[in-house]
């Protein structure tokens, strides 16, 4: 099942509806125009003048009314668009404003951690490590919001060719704490076209989902080369009880107490920007299949 993109769908629907509306308006206009010009000759009897006048008035006011309605709809639509845009801009600037103090908190935490290492106090060491771990979590959440608002405003990615396996291994080293990840790939040098930051966010999100939503810590990643495409299959031992068709819908959470509901939506959007694709299969034990374009080395 390919993950649907609800926002694009709704704007596509809106677009076709307005096209239909414009078409109907045009047809009615042509019809009344035809009536006004031609009925004068056809009607030869005495009521001719009265009927022509009636048609002109009725048709005219009908058209004016429709025109007014269309204009007000358009204004409403544009206002709504502007509001959405400014909301996104607001979130982008807010998260950005939050990032600098967060950087400071993290730095203080890491310096404290380093000083404590020499003091050899296990409790304090544990506490300062948790402090750093939690700033990391906060950071990921903010990156997600920032990327979401950037992508929704039509922001682009910086696509480069990179080696996939060491990249995944590095992310796991940084964030795979407590997870048992097995990577299966025949070609260790496989390269893909991706934006480093976006790819990091995608992988972080998958690992985070496993950590939050599953009891087991086993994860299998399988990488397959197929022509100009690279497929990455991610499978954990989770037990998904929600509606699979709604996965990837913005703000959809099957378990409302956990997660923000933007992770998979963003994953899908970012993959699309990298000319890739996200597919979800499996019933309860979900399998995420990520498609990427093969890197330049691969094609050469």
């Amino acid at each position, binding site marked *: 099942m390919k993950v649907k993109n609800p926002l694009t769908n709704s704007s596509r629907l809106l677009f076709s509806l307005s096209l239909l509306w414009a078409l109907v308006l045009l047809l009615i206009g042509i019809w009344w125009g035809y009536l006004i010009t031609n009925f004068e000759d056809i009607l030869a009897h005495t009521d001719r003048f009265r009927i022509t006048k009636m048609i002109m008035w009725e048709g005219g006011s009908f058209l004016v009314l429709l025109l007014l309605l269309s204009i007000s709809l358009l204004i409403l639509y544009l206002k709504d668009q502007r509001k959405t845009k400014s909301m996104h801009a607001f979130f982008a600037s807010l998260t950005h404003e939050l990032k600098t103090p967060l950087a400071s908190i993290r730095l*203080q935490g890491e310096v404290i951690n380093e000083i404590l290492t020499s003091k050899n106090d296990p409790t304090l060491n544990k506490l300062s490590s948790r402090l750093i771990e939690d700033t990391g979590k906060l950071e990921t959440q903010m990156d997600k919001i920032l990327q979401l608002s950037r992508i929704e405003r039509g922001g682009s990615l*910086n696509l480069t060719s990179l080696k996939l396996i060491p990249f995944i291994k590095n992310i796991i080293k940084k964030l795979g704490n407590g997870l048992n990840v097995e990577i299966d790939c025949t070609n260790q040098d496989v390269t893909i076209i991706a*934006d480093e930051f976006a790819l990091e966010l995608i992988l972080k999100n998958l690992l985070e989902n496993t950590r939050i939503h599953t009891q087991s810590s086993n994860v299998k990643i399988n990488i397959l080369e197929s022509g100009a495409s690279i497929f990455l299959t991610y499978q954990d031992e989770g037990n998904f009880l929600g509606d699979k068709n709604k996965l990837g819908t913005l703000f959809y959470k099957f378990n409302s107490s956990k997660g923000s509901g933007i992770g998979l939506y963003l994953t899908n959007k970012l993959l699309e920007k990298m000319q890739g694709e996200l597919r979800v299969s499996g019933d309860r034990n979900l399998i995420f299949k990520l498609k990427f374009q093969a890197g330049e080395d691969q094609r050469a």
Partner: protein
Amino acid sequence: MLNILIVEDEENLGSTLEDYLKSLGHQCVWAKTGAEASAMFHDKNPNLILMDIGLPDTNGIKLAKEFRNIRKDFVLLFLSALNDPETKVEALEIGAEDYITKPFALKELILRLDRILKTQTSMETLPEEIVHGKLKIWFRRYEVMDADGTLVSLSQKECAILELLYKKHNEAITREEIIEKIWGEDKFPSNRTVDNYIVKLRKWCESDSSHVLEIQSIRSIGYKLIINH
């Protein structure tokens, strides 16, 4: 030891960073505004600048460009909360060694500083000006001159690659070695990315028709710099 200028308007971040880097034995000054940074740049002659982008009186990229026009023998590292690709690309285009987004891991920063220090120390063992035929190299200034007498500015990475090839001239160097030494363990450029850097260096070598310096490709292994006397 590095001579570091920190340009950062956030009080706590700047102050902690300054103290920490000093504790590691580096010489370190901290500027809170663009104007302060300019004064310190002239005063202290830093060889490494940690530059924030959103400054109260100017933009970090603009400021770095001004500094680059004055002299080229310093390493530039951006430390910014902005993480849109456009800004990153713009920052890297003016020859920044790297662009680190805030919040950053201290370890990551220290690893970068260590690598920069290593390159710096290694470059210091080479003479100020190296001449081969019509070609000239000034590693410390990140500049080379081609056979027509045109000065070519090199980015930090181009310069480091040339230095690596130069120090091990007549020896084959694998792409993996180049990636490990120049990019470090936490970056994953493809082999093609390395090739793109070589293209510019090779073009510079080939400007001298007597082939005094030659960068040879060794199929499926890497590169070799040949010095023909």
